[in-house]
């Protein structure tokens, strides 16, 4: 694993840039002065206690949440209220949700081909070939004609990953992808994500899977109360945390 990780290159090209970003829910200040830069090929794990704003942060990156001040620039496109820019960013950024959010009325294959056909305007035949390619990659091509309700949680999450990949995104966001899964199924999803990381995908992942962070991340960000408290490369982060808040958090989740 460490060997695979060593091979991964991070380029100098900036994929996501966030400057002085602030967000409020009503009067509640959820994200405070967020500054971060993500280079192409980086694998970032964001962790922190619940309510720390980590999900909100990555949901701002594809504008599922609106930020009120500061700048978010994704692949050179700044996110503003201009719908055109939002659609452009969303078609470049894939997202995997905690609860999979597959479309229950469509088959697995239709789930995967819907956006390429309607957003990318790719012919149906071609979209289906791409979808089958990615379904093979997440190791469930045989489920293509079933409905999401017939699959296990782990399989559904892998379909969700394949669905995002079908749009050929340059950046992938993962919002607690394994939190809703049974322990037996977490591994199959993490394996898929590790494979993706090894192919050089730019990834931002909100997760509590510290094993995953150590295996593939090149940076771990710890958030609390809407702020970035500490960020470091994983070994330093886990072995030598600097802030008291981080130490407490790590002792709580690694304590058993």
């Amino acid at each position, binding site marked *: 694993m460490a060997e695979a990780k060593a091979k991964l290159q991070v380029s100098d090209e900036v994929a996501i840039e966030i400057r002085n970003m602030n967000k409020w829910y009503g009067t509640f200040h959820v994200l405070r002065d967020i500054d971060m830069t993500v280079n192409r090929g980086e694998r970032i794990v964001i962790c922190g206690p619940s309510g720390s704003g980590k999900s909100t942060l990555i949901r701002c990156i594809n504008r599922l949440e609106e930020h009120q001040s500061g700048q978010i620039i994704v692949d050179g496109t700044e996110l503003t209220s201009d719908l055109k820019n939002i659609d452009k960013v969303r078609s470049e950024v894939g997202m995997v949700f905690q609860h*999979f959010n597959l479309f*229950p*009325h469509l088959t697995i294959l239709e789930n995967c081909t819907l956006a390429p056909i309607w957003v990318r305007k790719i012919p149906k035949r071609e979209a289906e070939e791409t979808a089958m390619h990615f379904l093979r990659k997440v190791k469930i091509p045989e489920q293509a004609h079933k*409905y999401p309700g017939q699959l296990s949680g782990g399989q559904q999450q892998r379909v969700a990953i394949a669905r995002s990949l079908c*749009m050929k995104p340059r950046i992938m966001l993962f919002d607690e992808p394994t939190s809703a899964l049974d322990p037996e199924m977490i591994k199959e999803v993490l394996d898929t994500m590790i494979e993706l990381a090894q192919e050089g995908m730019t990834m931002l992942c909100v997760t509590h899977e510290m094993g995953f962070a150590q295996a593939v991340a090149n940076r771990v960000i710890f958030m609390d109360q809407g702020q970035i408290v500490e960020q470091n490369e994983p070994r330093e982060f886990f072995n030598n945390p600097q802030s008291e808040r981080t130490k407490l958090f790590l002792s709580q989740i690694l304590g058993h």
Partner: protein
Amino acid sequence: MHDSFVRTEMLAPQDPPLRETGAVKWLRENLFSGPLNTILTLLGAYIVVTLVLMAFPWWWNGVWNATSLAECRAKVAEMGAESGACWAVIKARWHQYIFGFYPMDQYWRPVLTAGLLLAALAPVLYWNDRKGAILTGIAGVLAVISMLLLSSPVMAVVVSAAIMAALFVLARIRPRQMIWVTLAYPFAALFLLWGGQVWTYLSAILAVAAGIGFGLLYGKLRNDASNLIYAIVTAIGAAFVAAALIHYLDAVSADFLTKLSASNSFYPGFGSGGGMVAKTLGALVSAVIWAISVAVWAMVGVMRAVSGVLNLNLGMLADFPLAGTLGLGAVLAAIGTFKAARSRAAGIGIFGGLLAIGAYWLIVHPWLTAQLGAAIPLGLPRINSDQFGGFVLAIVIGVTAITASLPLGIILALGRRSDMFLVKTLSVGFIEFIRGVPLITLLFTASLLLAYFLPPGTNFDLILRVIILASLFSAAYLAEVIRGGLAALPRGQYEAADALGLDYWQAQRLIIMPQALKISIPGIVGTFIGLFKDTTLVSFVGLLDPLRGVTQIVRADINWKGIYWEPYIFVGVIFFLICFGMSRYSMYLERKLKTDHR
């Protein structure tokens, strides 16, 4: 102390004990599960048996051949029975219950319309092409048999049989093309039912095609210059339509105000005969009427002022139509060109399409139909709306209103959930207003009040007015039903659609609506059934609905005076069959769409 245990082989499943299956189990669980339930079962059985014994002689001694109620009663007495149904009235008058006063020699027209209706519905109701073809075939056979039984003209039967056979063949070999039959059906139905020159209806199809074509053209334009030209053409067209609209509004408002002022003499009429209460009521009504007329005057005044100001010539305030036309036309042209230059908004395409329909209707249509009608007169005898009645009327109103109200309901539901303040307020206002008012009030509005808003001299078909109001009424209910379905969808579905880059309408059409409508099927079909039964209320505005309208006419006949149960049972059974069919279909649809495997 615990012994350790390791299972060496897994157990195979076994059959359940005998007393847990079969009829004995069912009886025990459902009817005789305890002393109280046993008593209730026996009591229920007693009541059912008593009721059947009471009603049975009436049904059993029914008389089918008689020319009057008196003859019926004589025959029943002859048989030595105490009571007996007089079904002879149905035998004598059934055609009025079905067709109203539609001319007898034209009965084949509604029959063919009904046959075509089933054929047109087939591709909508079933995904399974074979089922669609079977439905089309059955509809054809039934239509032809009915025509033969109704001794229709030979030509009509032959032509109808040929049409239905052609549709059946089409449904068998090219089921995908059946959707064109569905789209053409409204025009065919209008032509068959109301008659007139066939060119009018063909021209209407052409108008729609021209509109859609012109609208779609916008999507095909590839560069900014052609976009701009399109937008300018559309804007100029809009200015013309605005001119027509403002002329019309001016005429209407003047006429409306005259009528309102006249109706204010209502007050003394109300108050003169009565006491204090009546006088107070009269004064209140009078005040309301005055308030409305003042509001309308104020609105007209504001419109005049705005149009004058927009034209930057305050001296033209007096000349409202011209100023308004120029002002509005200028604004629309500006908006249109601005939009076109800024983005390729689909709205301009839709707007252009509508304008093309309007222009065609105003200019090409009258000329074309006159020319063709003079050259090749081809058509069916004209039937007036007051000749419609019975189930033909109920089904015409029901089917049209159902078809119109579903898309309207969806739009209202989306509007109510919209973030845009104005859209939301208008939707909420519309829904709450319509739901707060009884349908009969709306029907009265359709028959009486709408005339106030129309320019003097226009004759707007009463059936059409009723259909519009019935559609709006059920659309408001549907909107709430569909909103329930929308609310039941998890937020994750919207987020997933957004995250994949689908725009609002794509997300609604592909992700949200299929699921929301599926959840709402029971409610939607419930609303449809309610709407269909509510068509009987049109008797209040003088249309011949099957339940009250036709029955009153039948009972006004000296021969059938005093008949009571039989017509209502007959009408009730037909209503039940149709509504039960809808309900069964909705259950089929729910089964068919069940993909969540919960």
